[in-house]
C-alpha cells in the first residue's frame, strides 16, 4: 500500500506539473506574453492592434477547426510532434527556478543547465519532425532553414551558459556550477549576475538569442509566411496547429524566464528581506513572498518580451538564412566569448 506521505508528494508534484510552474501557468502566461507582443508591435506601427487576449481566441478557434492530415503524411508522427514539443517546454519550465521557489528543492543536482540546453532543442526538433512527416516541399525548405537556425543559435547559447557557470563556479570556488538552483542560490546571496561587468556581454548575447530561439522577426526565415507558406507548419491545421502556436508562445515565456533566472536572480531576495522587515513570519509570509516573486518574474518576462521580441520585430525586416547564421556566429558569439574569457580569467 502507498503511504499517506507518498500520496501527498505525488499530488504535490502533479500540481507542479499541471498547475503552477507547469502546464496551466505556461498556457496562460505564454499566450498573454504573445498577446502583449502583438499589441505592442501594433502600437509601435501606429495601429490599434488586436485585443491582448487574441492568442487565446486563436488557440480556441484552432481547436474547433477541422484537422486535415495530408495523404502523403505519416499520420502518427504528424499528430504526435506538437505534443512532444509542448511537453518538453513544460518540463523546462519546471527546471527554471522562480527566484527562491524551486520544484526540485530537495534534489539540487537534478535541475541543471545542460538538461535545459538539451530540452530546448526538443521543440525545434519536434517542429522539424512534424514538418518532415507532412510531406510538403515547403516544409522541406523550412526544415533545412530551421536546422540552420538551431545550429546558429546553439553555439552562442552554450557559450553564455558556460560563462554563467564559470562565473558562479569561480565565486564559489568549485570550478563550474551547472546546477540551476546553485546559480539561483548564489544570486540570492550575492546579488544579480548582471551587476558584474564581465557578465554584461553575455546578458546582451542572451537578449539577442531570445528572438532567434523563438523564431520571431527578424530571425523567422524558417517560417517565412510570405515566402515559403509558413515553412514547416504549411500542412498543419486545426488543433495540432494550435498546439504549435501555443508552444511558440510558451517558448517566449521559457526563454525570458531563463534570462531572469540566469542574470536577474538577485531580485527575489529583496522581496524576502522586505517581508521580513515588515515583520511577517510563518506560512502567510512565505505565501506572500512566493506570490510577489511570481508577479515580479511575470513582469520581468513581459518587459523582456517587449524589448527583445516586440521592439526588434517592429524595426527590422526578415534576414536571409545565411545572414542570420553569419550574424549569430560573429556578433552574438563574439559577445558571449568576451564574457567567457573574462569569466575564465576571473573578474
Amino acid at each position: 500500500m502507498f503511504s499517506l506521505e507518498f500520496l501527498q508528494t505525488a499530488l504535490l508534484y502533479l500540481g507542479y506539473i499541471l498547475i503552477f510552474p507547469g502546464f496551466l501557468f505556461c498556457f496562460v502566461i505564454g499566450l498573454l506574453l504573445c498577446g502583449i507582443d502583438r499589441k505592442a508591435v501594433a502600437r509601435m506601427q501606429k495601429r490599434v492592434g488586436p485585443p491582448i487576449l487574441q492568442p487565446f481566441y486563436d488557440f480556441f478557434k484552432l481547436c474547433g477547426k477541422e484537422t486535415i492530415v495530408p495523404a502523403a503524411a505519416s499520420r502518427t508522427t504528424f499528430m504526435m510532434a506538437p505534443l512532444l514539443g509542448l511537453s518538453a517546454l513544460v518540463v523546462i519550465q519546471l527546471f527554471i527556478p522562480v527566484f527562491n521557489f524551486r520544484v526540485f528543492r530537495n534534489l539540487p543536482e537534478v535541475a541543471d543547465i545542460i538538461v535545459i540546453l538539451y530540452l530546448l532543442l526538443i521543440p525545434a526538433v519536434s517542429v522539424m519532425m512534424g514538418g518532415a512527416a507532412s510531406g510538403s516541399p515547403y516544409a522541406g525548405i523550412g526544415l533545412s532553414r530551421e536546422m540552420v537556425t538551431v545550429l546558429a543559435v546553439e553555439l552562442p547559447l552554450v557559450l553564455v551558459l558556460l560563462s554563467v557557470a564559470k562565473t558562479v563556479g569561480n565565486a564559489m570556488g568549485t570550478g563550474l556550477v551547472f546546477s540551476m538552483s546553485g546559480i539561483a542560490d548564489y544570486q540570492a546571496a550575492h546579488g544579480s549576475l548582471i551587476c558584474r561587468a564581465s557578465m554584461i556581454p553575455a546578458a546582451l548575447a542572451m537578449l539577442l538569442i531570445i528572438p532567434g530561439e523563438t523564431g520571431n522577426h527578424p530571425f523567422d526565415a524558417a517560417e517565412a509566411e510570405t515566402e515559403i507558406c509558413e515553412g514547416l507548419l504549411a500542412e498543419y491545421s486545426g488543433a495540432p496547429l494550435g498546439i504549435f502556436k501555443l508552444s511558440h508562445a510558451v517558448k517566449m515565456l521559457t526563454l525570458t524566464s531563463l534570462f531572469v533566472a540566469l542574470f536577474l536572480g538577485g531580485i527575489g531576495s529583496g522581496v524576502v528581506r522586505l517581508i521580513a522587515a515588515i515583520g511577517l513570519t510563518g506560512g502567510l509570509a512565505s505565501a506572500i513572498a512566493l506570490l510577489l516573486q511570481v508577479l515580479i518574474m511575470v513582469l520581468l518576462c513581459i518587459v523582456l518580451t517587449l524589448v527583445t521580441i516586440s521592439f526588434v520585430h517592429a524595426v527590422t525586416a526578415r534576414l536571409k538564412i545565411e545572414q542570420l547564421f553569419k550574424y549569430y556566429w560573429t556578433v552574438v558569439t563574439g559577445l558571449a566569448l568576451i564574457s567567457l574569457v573574462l569569466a575564465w580569467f576571473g573578474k
Partner: protein
Amino acid sequence: MFKKLIEESTAKSPWLFHINAGSCNGCDIELVSVLTPRYDAERLGVKLSGTPRHADIVVVTGPVTVQSLPRVLRTIEQVPEPRCIVTMGSCPQSGNVFRGSYSIAGPLSKYVHVDVDVAGCAPKPEAVIDGLVKAIEILREKRRAMN
C-alpha cells in the same frame, strides 16, 4: 460552455487566405491596404496567412481564368471547415470588363458556393472590411452548425 468558447473565438480570429485568380493586381493591393495602420483589420483578429490550411476566410480576386480555375478549386478544398469564401471586386462576380472573353471561366459562383460578394473595381477598404465582418457572422453560424 466549451462549445460556446470555440464559437466566440471563431468569430474573433478569422485568418485570411488570398487567391489571385487572374486579377489585375488592383484588388490585391486594396486587400493589403486593409491591414495597414489606417484601416487595421488586425483589430478584428484578421491575419493574412501564408497557406490555405491555416485559413478561415478565402478571398478570391480576379475573373477566374480558365488556367486558374482548377487551382482555385483545389486551393479552396484545402481550407479546413468551417470556411467562408469571399469574392473581392467585380471580376469574380460577373467577369467585369473581361466578360465574354475566351479565357474566362468565371463567375466563381458557378463552381463553388460563395458566401459574400464585395463589388467594386477595386472596392474601397471600408467595403472590404464590411464584407469581412459579414463573412465573420457567416463563419460563426457555420461553426454553430457543426456538431
